[in-house]
């Protein structure tokens, strides 16, 4: 009797294992053999925040381009919260998405999510922000923030001169872009000992926070000559704070991103300069790479830096709509 029970159990286990293996191999085949025109394949666009027009452009361009390539594309807003981002990844992995176009919330904190997707056979293409790993994402398409801010730093010295005081508003401290921008800027400006930074504070890439932070800094430092902001949302907030304080025509504001509202203010002579990133180029490149991956290509450069161009009053007419006209 015991022998019979053992035999039945063995047969049942073998059957279960065989069916499991079959379904695994079926799912692997599905991933690699999805038709290139997308069919009903789904692509996820996971964005750090949609509370900033620049990221809205990045997200919508990625989604629209994926749709043009024949995929069903959905945007997930991480609201600058790594926990929300992790929960999006859980949903995406269990919902059969074929690729993720990803703008991470944190260079270190987001690595685990990318690895989970990789283990599930879903390729991840980072856009604009990098993760601190070269073996997790399939490819990373990133703004060359450092070089962009070297150019911006050189222009800053030309405009402000080699003596004066300034404030720096940093972005999210966990994001590499924050430090690549800051370091590129300081690699130039710190060479001029007459230029003194009187305050350096994070405003999280956020317009409202930048307004609040600069208002507070201006109380202790009312006579600054310039403000360097790690993105254009903060530049807009800083400019608003200066308008409220009646100092907008005395203090030179520099941003970074190439957001439309800042480009317009540069044309009006209210903001001095920004670095034009190309969110549409990055989003399109990421979507095209995902399409190629789904079609079977496997060779991608791990990192593709995208040039950042200086926008000032002399060349502002060449720029608009988040890129060159």
């Amino acid at each position: 009797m015991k022998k019979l029970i053992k035999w039945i159990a063995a047969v049942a286990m073998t059957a279960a294992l065989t069916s499991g293996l079959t379904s695994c191999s079926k799912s692997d085949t599905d991933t690699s053999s999805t038709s290139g025109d997308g069919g009903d394949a789904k692509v996820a666009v996971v964005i750090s925040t949609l509370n900033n027009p620049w990221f809205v452009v990045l997200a919508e361009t990625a989604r629209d381009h994926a749709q043009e390539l024949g995929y069903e594309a959905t945007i997930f807003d991480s609201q600058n919260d790594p926990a929300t981002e992790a929960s999006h990844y859980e949903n995406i992995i269990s919902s059969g998405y074929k690729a993720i176009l990803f703008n991470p919330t944190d260079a270190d904190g987001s690595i685990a999510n990318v690895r989970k997707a990789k283990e599930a056979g879903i390729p991840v293409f980072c856009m604009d922000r990098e993760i601190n790993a070269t073996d997790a994402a399939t490819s990373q398409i990133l703004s060359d923030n450092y070089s962009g801010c070297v150019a911006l730093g050189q222009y800053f010295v030309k405009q402000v001169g080699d003596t004066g005081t300034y404030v720096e508003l940093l972005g999210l401290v966990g994001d590499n872009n924050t430090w690549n921008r800051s370091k590129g800027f300081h690699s130039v400006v710190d060479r001029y000992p007459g230029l003194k930074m009187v305050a350096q504070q994070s405003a999280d890439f956020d317009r409202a926070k930048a307004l609040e932070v600069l208002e507070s800094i201006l109380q202790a430092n009312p006579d600054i000559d310039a403000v360097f902001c790690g993105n254009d949302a903060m530049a807009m907030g800083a400019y608003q704070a200066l308008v409220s304080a009646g100092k907008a025509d005395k203090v030179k504001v520099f941003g970074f991103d190439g957001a439309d509202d800042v480009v317009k203010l540069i044309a009006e002579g209210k903001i001095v300069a920004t670095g034009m990133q190309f969110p549409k180029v990055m989003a399109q490149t990421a979507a095209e790479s995902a399409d190629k991956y789904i079609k079977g290509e496997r060779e991608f450069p791990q990192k593709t830096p995208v040039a950042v161009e200086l926008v000032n009053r002399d060349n502002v007419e060449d720029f608009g709509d988040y890129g060159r006209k």
Partner: protein
Amino acid sequence: MSTSEPTLKSRLLRWCGGMAGVCVLLYLLPLFNIVPLKEARKQSAAAAFNAASYVKTFWNDKLTKGGPKAVDAGELIDAFNKDRGDAAERYGHRLGLSSSASFFVSGSGSISSVDKGTIEITLKEGGTVTIDTGPVFGNAIRDGSGLLDVSKFPNSQDFNALSSEINRRVEESVFPSIREKATVGASVRFVGGVEITDSDTIPPLNLVPVVIDFP
């Protein structure tokens, strides 16, 4: 009663043996380690990328000894005048989707002018090269050498730190001899990096020197 006593004992023994086994396992494979804060800081500093030491080795072993293949400055100017796209592709390196190309160049000529912060060299075969001897910015040498790949650096801050360190080295080890020996008419040989944006007009080539000799 007499039969339950040995069972209890043996159970107790088994339980003790099991606990001992778990203790040994936890000792060999601890679930967590407690590291003093000071030690943790030391470990993280040791793991941090050291751009100065990386560049020292790169400069001594790669750039100045044999070095990357350099294109002749006159040949590069000619190639640019014929077809700048082709010249960039044949001789240059582009970093990702970049609007500039970087080159590693060599050449010789004579100094035609020395101004505050800039010297100009007239090449033997014609054409001019300038060297700005003030603060050095940009990635002309890092990218022009073609030897460093951004994809090999998990954190791009480390890759960018290389440019700062290379530029600092140029200022400290190459510029002093230029300031000391550069006079109009002096013969000069050079090797270095050049970065040309797609909208630049050349000549002159603006050189960031790795080597400069006054034979």
